[in-house]
């Protein structure tokens, strides 16, 4: 019998194997890490928290799909990054925000911040953080009207202040640090429970999805500054506002944070300083999203600084 040969085999460059972690799996793991905060959000703010989150996910996916289809680009909704952006937007708005405003936020994040700059990996700033800032400035009243959390106990009011609002403007009873840690406070859907976010963040570090450098430097800087500046409670500052959410889930966004370890240190400390300064001395009660946005803009420069430091021309590396 004549031997059969195979003369048309696939030829490609080594390596011929890849790890099982792809972009979809990375994004999916982050989504899983956000589940505890989502659960707390639903508990505190009721069904509206779930509706907002699902709406934002759907809106982000639809915008991404439509943009790709209109621009005849390869579809990227399967990588789950749009879904993650949707969750992060929802977590950064009050549950009571009118739905159309949430959709505007999703449009800003996906179309303006992400796709107009070239899609996944090409955006200069974090889409969810930027969307939050745009909503905050455009719809100041709605974005600062906070529903009363279930955990705060029975009350006749339907809205109340956030702890940072009390700190900034006075009025109202300051919640205990334990309530703040657990999430029995007013705020955005996903930011209220420091505990739930901490669990998610540690999960991400354990799974190797994020490096602990940025969250540790970010939180550490805020903590130390609150310790130094008289009249500030470090624990309060760690648990208040969007710090935990920002430090673990927004500041660690790969695309908009530095790649080298030293860069992450600079980035984390920068975020911490800006957050604290805005909170304590600025006009706005909360500074996490502004801090992250400003450091996002600096990221290319931080990366350049770190690479030219690590790889000196002509000289060997460390």
């Amino acid at each position, binding site marked *: 019998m004549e031997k059969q040969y195979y003369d048309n*085999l*696939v030829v490609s460059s080594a390596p*011929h194997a890849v790890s099982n972690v792809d972009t979809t799996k990375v994004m999916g793991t982050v989504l899983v890490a956000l589940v505890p905060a989502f659960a707390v959000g639903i508990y505190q703010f009721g069904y509206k928290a779930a509706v907002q989150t699902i709406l934002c996910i759907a809106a982000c996916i639809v915008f991404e799909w439509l943009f790709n289809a209109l621009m005849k680009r390869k579809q990227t909704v399967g990588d789950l990054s749009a879904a993650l952006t949707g969750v992060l937007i929802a977590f950064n708005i009050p549950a009571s925000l009118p739905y159309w405003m949430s959709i505007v936020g999703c449009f800003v994040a996906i179309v303006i911040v992400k796709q107009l700059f070239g899609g996944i990996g*090409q955006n200069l700033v974090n889409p969810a953080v930027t969307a939050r800032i745009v909503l905050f400035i455009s719809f100041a009243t709605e974005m600062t009207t906070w529903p009363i959390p279930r955990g705060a106990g029975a009350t006749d009011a339907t809205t109340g202040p956030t702890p940072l609002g009390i700190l900034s403007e006075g009025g109202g009873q300051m919640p205990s640090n334990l309530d703040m840690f657990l999430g029995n406070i007013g705020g955005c859907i996903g930011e209220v429970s420091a505990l739930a976010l901490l669990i998610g963040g540690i999960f991400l570090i354990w799974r190797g999805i994020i490096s602990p450098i940025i969250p540790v430097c970010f939180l550490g800087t805020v903590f130390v500054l609150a310790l130094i500046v008289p009249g500030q409670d470090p624990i309060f500052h760690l648990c208040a506002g969007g710090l935990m959410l920002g430090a673990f889930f927004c500041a660690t966004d790969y695309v908009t944070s530095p790649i080298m370890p030293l860069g992450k240190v600079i980035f984390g400390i920068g975020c911490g300083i800006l957050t604290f300064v805005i909170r304590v001395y600025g006009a706005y009660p909360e500074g996490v999203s502004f801090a992250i946005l400003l450091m996002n803009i600096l990221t290319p420069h931080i990366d350049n600084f770190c690479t030219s430091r690590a790889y000196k*021309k002509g000289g060997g*590396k460390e």
Partner: protein
Amino acid sequence: MSQQKKHLQSIRVSHEKHTSACETQVMPVPDTVCISMSQHIGAPCKPLVKKGDYVKVGQPIGDTDAFVSAPIHSSVSGTVTGIEGIRSVMGGEDQAIVIETDKKQEVWEEIKPPEVNSREDFVKAIRASGLVGLGGASFPTHIKYNPQNIDEVDTLIVNGAECEPFITSDHRLMLENPQEIIDGCVIVMEQLGLKEGYIGIEENKQDAISLLNKMLAEQNHPEIKTVTLRARYPQGAERVLVYEVTGKTMNAGVLPAQLGVILSNITTIAFVGQYFKTGRPLTTKRITVDGSAVTEPKNIIAPIGTSIADIIAFCGGYKAEPKKILMGGPMMGRAIFSDRTPLVKNNNAILAFAGAQAIIPEETGCINCGKCHKACPFKLLPTAFATAYENKDADRLNQLQIMQCMECGSCSYVCPARRPLGFINKLSKAFVKEEANK
């Protein structure tokens, strides 16, 4: 002895060592062999025989006067039916001698154990054996064993780190022919005046480590020690192994001898042990045959020049249509375009894949995650190489130390966006060299 406390960055790969318990089988001689004249780095050999000649096992059939070269011997007895051009694994055209075998395997009369009275004799004998680096580099061994600063060299490192997935041929060698390894170490250390010998083996081959330790103790060789390495990739890369064993950083372009080290693959060393006993030159190779398209994955010893198709046929044939066949492991092996390709000296595995493993994954956008940087043993920044290469910026590539890349492919392996970073590194290095020559 245990490994260094500090490690270079490395990655975990799925081991897939399905054949580690498969005792090596000797493959019968095929009907024809096709022996390439280009089986080492350096100048190809010129055929010493012509069509119609009768050759015997171990008879030299190719050689050259070029400095970087090693002779090539017939792996069979039979009649030369032609000298043909074949497409090499590297993509170029090589000369190859085709021999129709008579299955008698008559051994060449002049084969006898080499007589060695000086280092010169030793180096000559090594060259005559046709030995090249069998770990994959195929650099002629006699040149490696004759460094200019031989007086400053005092350490032998034997590379038993088989860090590629699937491949178990070195592991089987350690279990089946440990004496050859020890003999090889003793001969090389004696002839080159080396004081210390280290055999680096990964921790996932405890049976081999304890066997060698036991034999080294019984035969009273305190100068030779095994070193337990982490089972990570790329533990078996020359520059990584030197660091893990000695703690010395070896930059690209530096030879091990400059750090006082001679480094050889464990198969190379075992061949030395065998050769000085029997005088039989390098004509066969122990390889692992595995992959989703192979019916009976196993370890075999096959004559050099046997076609991949014949080797697979000996392993039960294909159980599914092969889409991709690799010479070597999945991390650094080469994909070949045809299974007519003959076995060469430095092959240590044939992996044939059907289906999923043969599909080149679709590339998506970089998400700046930095996994490539964290995977690189030398802390390079592959994603920045890719950007600089796209911009055709040779200065930037140099600044980022592109030449330090050893093409281990770890960056491609870990990239969640499935970017072919290792491939881009190779292209970048070629581009930088081209620009420098302009």
